[in-house]
């Protein structure tokens, strides 16, 4: 229990260390450079940082186990989310180059904050100690609060930031209250020690309340109904690449935490909580999206609906549900980051062109980008040969295996309804003439790379889902073994 941290400890937080160091370097260099020309350099440093972090995460996989006195657990599950989150960060940084220069935002800390936020999200997926989970959650949230308000001369952006901040810290307070009660109910804040305490025949009643409160906090972070009110407003006001970032990376990380708390810690009374939240998210998200005319807002409602589909996997049996959920977060990240990359290119200075009418005639004006966006939208619908199809397929088949027929039917009906609003964007792009002349710019290198990466990931997951799914299954099994190993650990007086 005592002594200094070993080298292995540091290896197990290597991606976080790399990201922090690069984040600090970006912040230190920022004031030394000329404002106008430094953006690309700082962005490149951040990009290198996130690429090194991806490599560090892969390297870390050879060294699974606990670190820092059972606070961090590196396993297949955490490595999966590490790679996912750092890749999202890299793609978003690539997207941001052009966006930042078009919007005339000159601030190196933008890239620094993306890296720092990613540190939090990485830690969220590997933390097995509620204290560390809370701190990681805050690192990621506070960074995204600031990033949401980065177009600070626009009233909409600062309003989005303020709303996100107020509701976000309110939700965090709920989460914390839940953690405190969980500590009171079980006597520990370590997930591996909580789970045997919750497996006894009499679960302390306080634990139910604790799980409910923690679910409120995390439900907010993943934008699931009824804690979704902030989503459309914040996504509309925040800078487009950042929306791509925060609709995927913090969400994936929060889902990882939710998986750890619900399954690894074996939270009591979770089923109906998830069931209601899943149904509400799917229905409210899709119904809300039907009437939207702003594309960012529309995708915000769609992201609520997708959180609902994901929660369906949570309601299913853990053996298949966990891997289905992991696959879904990856597929959703690929297509959503891509879609927002296209949107941030079209948005133009001041994000003028983000309504559905502005997308009219895009198929003619910019055929390549329109085709790319179409593929992402088809994937969001769940058309075969795209990642979205297999994601939905695995989620619903996991639900059916658990005999959740009602939930599956609601989910499938919802995905049919969802097709309407995604197709509407495609129809507008190809079938309608543009009313005004909207300037078209070429595709710069950074954005092009980002699009190729997300397109490749979307199609890869749609055509050859096997490898990713196998990996998810293996790491989900690893995750589920924990109660047994934790029980074995309590035999030795480890406290």
């Amino acid at each position: 229990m005592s002594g200094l941290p070993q080298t292995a400890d540091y290896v197990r937080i290597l991606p976080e260390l790399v990201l922090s160091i690069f984040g600090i370097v970006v912040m230190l260099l920022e004031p030394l450079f000329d404002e106008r020309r430094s953006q690309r350099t700082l962005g490149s440093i951040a990009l290198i940082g996130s690429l090194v972090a991806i490599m560090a995460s892969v390297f870390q996989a050879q060294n699974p186990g606990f670190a820092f006195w059972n606070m961090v657990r590196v396993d297949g599950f955490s490595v999966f989310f590490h790679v996912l989150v750092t890749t999202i960060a890299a793609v978003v940084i690539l997207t941001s180059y052009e966006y930042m220069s078009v919007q005339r935002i000159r601030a190196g800390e933008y890239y620094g904050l993306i890296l720092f936020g990613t540190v939090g999200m990485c830690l969220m997926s590997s933390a097995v100690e509620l204290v560390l989970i809370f701190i990681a959650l805050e690192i990621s949230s506070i960074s995204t609060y600031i990033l949401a308000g980065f177009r600070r001369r626009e009233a909409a952006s600062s309003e989005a930031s303020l709303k996100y901040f107020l509701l976000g810290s309110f939700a965090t307070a709920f989460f914390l209250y839940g953690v405190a009660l969980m500590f009171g109910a079980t006597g520990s804040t370590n997930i591996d020690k909580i789970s045997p305490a919750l497996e006894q025949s009499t679960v302390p009643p306080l634990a139910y309340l604790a799980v409910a409160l923690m679910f409120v906090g995390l439900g907010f972070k993943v934008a699931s109904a009824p804690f979704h009110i902030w989503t459309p407003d914040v996504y509309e006001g925040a800078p487009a690449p950042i929306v791509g970032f925060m609709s995927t990376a913090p969400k994936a990380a929060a889902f990882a935490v939710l998986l750890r708390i619900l399954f690894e810690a074996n939270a009591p009374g979770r089923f109906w909580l998830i069931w209601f939240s899943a149904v509400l998210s799917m229905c409210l998200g899709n119904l809300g999206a039907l009437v939207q005319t702003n594309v960012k807002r529309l995708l915000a409602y769609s992201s609520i609906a997708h959180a609902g589909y994901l929660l369906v996997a949570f309601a299913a049996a853990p053996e298949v549900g966990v891997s289905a959920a992991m696959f879904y977060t990856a597929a959703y990240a690929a297509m959503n980051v891509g879609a927002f990359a296209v949107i941030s290119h079209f948005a133009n200075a001041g994000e003028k062109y983000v309504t559905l009418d502005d997308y009219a005639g895009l198929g003619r004006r910019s055929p390549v980008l329109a085709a790319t966006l179409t593929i992402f939208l088809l994937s969001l619908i769940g058309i075969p040969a795209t990642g979205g199809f297999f994601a939905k397929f695995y989620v619903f088949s996991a639900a059916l295996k658990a005999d959740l027929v009602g939930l599956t039917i609601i989910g499938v009906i919802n995905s049919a309804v969802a097709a309407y609003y995604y197709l509407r964007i495609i129809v507008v792009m190809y079938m309608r003439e543009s009313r005004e002349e909207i300037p078209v710019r070429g595709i710069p290198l950074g954005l092009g790379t980002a699009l190729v990466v997300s397109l490749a990931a979307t199609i890869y997951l749609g055509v050859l889902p096997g490898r990713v799914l196998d990996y998810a299954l293996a790491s989900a099994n690893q995750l589920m073994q924990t109660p047994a190993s934790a029980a074995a650990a309590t035999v030795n007086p480890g406290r």
Partner: protein
Amino acid sequence: MVPITPIHYLILAAALFTLGTIGVLTRRNVVIVLMSIELILNAVNLNLVAFSRMWGLQGQVFAIFVITDAAAEAAVGLGILIAFFRNKETVNVDEVDLLKW
């Protein structure tokens, strides 16, 4: 004289939590909303310290982390509020109405 047991602390914390929640939901000034959130965090701290008497010191350590986080959050929150104020000249929640539906 009734001895003070953990239950009393829990009730006090629950009362603080409720007060904070009501404050967030009903107050219109953003600064007061922020203060209400701090109130909830202090309810959490009270809980943690009370449970510490039953389970050991880790609860108190956790409370210190919560205090630190509250400070960080307040700093960022007030910064965001200033950015908002520059655009809209108000700190009133009712006038945070540019984005809706």
